[in-house]
């Protein structure tokens, strides 16, 4: 039970850090922490074998989004 609270608090903390950070490149690692915490929370909340599939789908999807955001950001840098 403590595990779930720790994970939830870390998710909220990461969101606050990501919101306050102005630099896009340094914002993404905070969002990454939030993704870890949410994937962990999915499994801690739902003790079912399919919860693993849900957590993995969420995590891989959010990582792909972060990848796309970072690549777009890097491309924007080159044009500038």
């Amino acid at each position, binding site marked *: 039970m403590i595990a779930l609270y720790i994970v939830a608090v870390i998710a909220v903390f990461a969101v606050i850090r990501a919101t306050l950070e102005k630099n896009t490149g340094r914002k993404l*690692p905070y969002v*990454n*922490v939030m993704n870890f915490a949410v994937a962990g929370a999915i499994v801690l909340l739902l003790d079912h074998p399919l919860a693993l599939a849900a957590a993995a789908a969420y995590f891989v999807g959010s990582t792909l989004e972060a990848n796309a955001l*970072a690549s*777009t950001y890097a491309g924007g840098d080159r044009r500038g």
Partner: protein
Amino acid sequence: MLGEFLHILAAAIVSWILFVAVDIFFKLPETGGVVGATAIARDIEAGGGDLAGGTMMGNIVCSPDASAGTLLAACGVYVAGIPGGLAAAVLVYIGNRICYDPGYAGTTGAVLATFVVYGFTLVGFAATDFIAGMVIAILTVQGLSHAHASQLLGRLWRVRE
């Protein structure tokens, strides 16, 4: 209550050592796997951090690495024991392919973590300790101080070199 808290802290330390060792073994700090990882590394360096450590942090953001493997393996062991952990390794491998990641750090990390987490469950730990522990471990790398974390990772990378 205190016992569970100490288990989570111990699990965080074990997870940290496991994923950093696997990521450094697979040379994540060497080059950005995708252009976005390199951009994140440059921003971290501009913020007073280390380029090699920043590159590893950028790679962690952009593709499932050993840290993601450890988290999902712990989740897998929690819901279905060793088969669950190995299923998580397969899902991480698919994730690596989707993210155009040539490295196998994530898959290796997931397989190793499956057996490490399962081993610890035999001596009184719960798999949930490792889920929370891994989230704490990634917080210390990606979520507290990018400058300090990247400098530490850069120092460990130079030891490996």
